[in-house]
């Protein structure tokens, strides 16, 4: 049983998928088509119109809303899914299968939106702008995670670092001003990450356990301080960063309001993705950083100080996670609340894996999760026939589905999670 499976997998060439998997995926596409046709398109009356709003403010150049017939567009979507499914079963998309899966996912969501907004309107630009905002903590968290894992330190404490930094940034922000809040967040995240690094590099503690310890500690200490000092207090009114429109770019219709009309955090997210992509792949430091995570022994042989690289990676990871944490208090609501991170640190880890441990991939995955969240928010406002409580599960379900490998098995840095032991003379 086991043997045949292995041999079957080994005959499949790189970048391609096995025949069974190909057929299963094709079958799923056809199921999607059937669902869209019978559940969504059938009950919709022939002459209902769906309106997709495109303008959310008057700063960008205005363009007319998109209005179209709900039933016909749903039938087109069903037809497209069916066609893709049939092609997948008979010929197979081979190398671009993952892209096609994503495409069918988008079609399905679009179908839901058209159906949900049949006879009324939905602001598609507003929804996508919200997607960008909601993706911030997930993307930055994922980047923080990948910085750490690329150097061989598994860090599941991003959630804990975020919640702790959200607290300290709210307090420091209230006392000294917003920017000092950001500084406090960087320091908090950095400090917690250094504890993690110290435990996992010096004491070789299992990194998952060390991470869990930091998560429990962070939840405990933030709740403790919140209940003791912050419930009704001037210490918890930092205010938040106001949105800033990037000159010229914000005027582009649709694109402008979606990407270039946000506060500090969104722009720093873009910047982090660009800078870290260059740093990781085009600099000497990046090469060393990745070498330490893939094969620390080889790196050590070439004279790279493995421990130093890993400590630095931890520090960087912590500061980035801390920055992501300050988003919750300084970037969105302007105060600290006990459960405000709501598992975003863990979703960020899923985004990191989905994004294949790269900054650009993390951004894409972060946007996906951000979209799931913004969909949830918008649909619950729309008098949607699905209860809000069930919609709230969506980001978490997507996380599991993504992790379970709709995209196939992913492989992280080889040495992640294993402490490095220098050979002694």
């Amino acid at each position, binding site marked *: 049983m086991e043997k045949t499976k292995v041999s079957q997998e080994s005959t499949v060439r790189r970048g391609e998928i096995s025949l069974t998997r190909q057929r299963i995926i094709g079958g799923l596409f056809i199921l999607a088509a059937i669902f869209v046709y019978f559940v969504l398109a059938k009950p919709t009356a022939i002459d209902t119109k769906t309106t997709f709003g495109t303008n959310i403010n008057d700063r960008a150049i205005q363009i007319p809303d998109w209005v179209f017939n709900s039933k016909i567009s749903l039938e087109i979507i069903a037809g497209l899914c069916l066609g893709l499914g049939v092609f997948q079963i008979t010929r197979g998309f081979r190398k671009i299968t993952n892209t096609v899966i994503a495409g069918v996912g988008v079609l399905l969501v679009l179908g839901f939106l058209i159906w949900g907004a049949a006879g009324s309107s939905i602001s598609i630009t507003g929804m996508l702008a919200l997607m960008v905002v909601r993706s911030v903590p997930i993307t930055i968290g994922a980047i923080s995670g990948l910085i750490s*894992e690329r150097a061989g330190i*598994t860090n*599941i404490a991003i959630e804990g670092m975020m919640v702790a930094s959200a607290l300290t940034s709210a307090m420091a922000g209230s006392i000294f001003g917003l920017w000092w809040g950001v500084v406090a967040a960087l320091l908090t995240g950095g400090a917690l990450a250094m504890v993690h690094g110290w*435990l996992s590099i010096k*004491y070789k*503690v*299992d*990194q*998952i*356990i*060390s991470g*869990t*310890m*930091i*998560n*429990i*500690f962070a*939840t*405990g*200490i933030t*709740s*403790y*301080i919140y*209940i*003791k*000092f912050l419930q009704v207090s001037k210490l918890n009114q930092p205010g938040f960063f106001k949105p800033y429109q990037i000159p010229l770019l914000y005027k582009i219709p649709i694109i402008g309001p979606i990407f270039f009309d946000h506060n500090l955090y969104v722009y720093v997210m873009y910047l982090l993705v660009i800078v870290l992509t260059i740093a990781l792949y085009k600099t000497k430091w990046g090469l060393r950083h990745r070498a330490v995570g893939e094969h620390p022994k080889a790196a050590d042989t070439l004279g790279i100080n493995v421990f130093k690289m890993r400590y630095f990676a931890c520090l960087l990871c912590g500061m980035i996670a801390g920055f992501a944490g300050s988003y919750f208090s300084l970037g969105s609501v302007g105060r600290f609340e006990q*459960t405000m991170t*709501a*598992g975003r640190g*863990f*979703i960020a*880890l*899923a985004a990191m*894996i989905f994004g294949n441990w790269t900054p650009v991939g993390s951004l894409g995955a972060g946007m996906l999760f951000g979209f799931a969240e913004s969909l949830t928010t918008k649909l619950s406002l729309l008098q949607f026939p699905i*209860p809000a*409580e*069930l919609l*709230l*599960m969506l980001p*978490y*379900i997507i*996380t*599991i589905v993504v*992790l*379970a*490998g709709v995209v196939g*098995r*992913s*492989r*992280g*840095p080889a040495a*992640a*999670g*294993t402490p490095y032991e220098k050979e002694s003379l």
Partner: protein
Amino acid sequence: MDKVSTTSQPKRNFFSIFYEELSKSSITIIILSIISGFIMGGILVIVSSPEVYKAFGSSLGEGLSTSWKIVSNTYSSLFLGAFGDPAKIMTAIESGEKKKILDALGPFFESLVVSTPYLFTGVAVALGFRAGVFNIGAEGQLQVGSIAAAWAGWTFSGLSPWIHVPLALLCGAIAGGLWGFIPGWLKVKTGAHEVITTIMMNYIGYYLIYYLVAAPFRDPKEVVPKTPWILDSAHLYRFFPEPIRFHLGFFVAILVAVVVWILLFKTTWGYEIRSVGLNMSASKYAGMNITVITVAAMALSGAIAGLGGASEIMGVYWRQSQALSSGYGFDSIALALLAQNHPLGVILTALLFGFLRNGSKVMQLRAGIPIYIINILQAFIILFLAAPAIIRTIYRLKQPSIKEAAIASTSLSEKK
């Protein structure tokens, strides 16, 4: 090495031998970890009290005495909340009235009630660790177990308690088992790491219950969403009259711990579980079915946590409401590690945590210290247990002769 040292020191008195043995023992590490955790908690309480700074401002002596007062007040209220007032218990026993004695012992029995879910989740997490899976999802498994038991509790009417109670418990176990099975199955089939999937399952379970209690399972007579009361026939037997909620679930939990101990250490299947947990590749090479063992261990772990939820509903609350963030699942990680993943050890540590948790309520009322200090204590206890070298350095203990085994080995990325 050891032999040389013993022969070179011909006269070793009892105390030096005793000290050496003691400092090598893992029990010492455990006890010192707990003590150090309490010390760190005490320091935190002092640092977070504004009165202390004021007192230090006037004089050093006053500062120290205020610090001492605050810490002793905190921990003594913790003790009173957990065990009851010793003076009150003594007078009650002297008076000989049954009602008075029960009243005085109330906090003690309540602590046992609070320990009960810890027993279940602790055993669940320990079982997972033994099989090499890190079940952080005990929280969600406990909650789906409780809603399933509640559903069984009010749906099946006209049954004798002898059938209804096991049936409802079984429903809880099945729901929890399903919640554990999914991450286990995903781990084996797709390589999705159970740490993340179980946490996601916690959130999914949370919203599922939120939804179920808000709409389909809601008792229409209630303003705040709550399920109907479960029927009398589904109640777990309570041993004492009203205010004391000590119930049969406690003994069910002990039984489960013993059964898991027998399973793990006295059966072939348990041997395979432990073997997979220690070295997956070697077990695979030895012909064990890793897939089945991992998934079954995860499902069993979930089922035990689900039983814990069922026992909470059937013994303590009798109905389910929406506010459910119990924290039992996360606490049980520290608890299982403290017990070194031994089911019988879990009985002791679950009692410790239960008494702490119950005592912390009184502590919050009397000393104004938020109950979350318990989480901080736990974090420090995990820290000291996971890195025994820290404890050894602080207390200058000797290194053990055998290298301490890693508690669990885990990684987020799939290893080939």
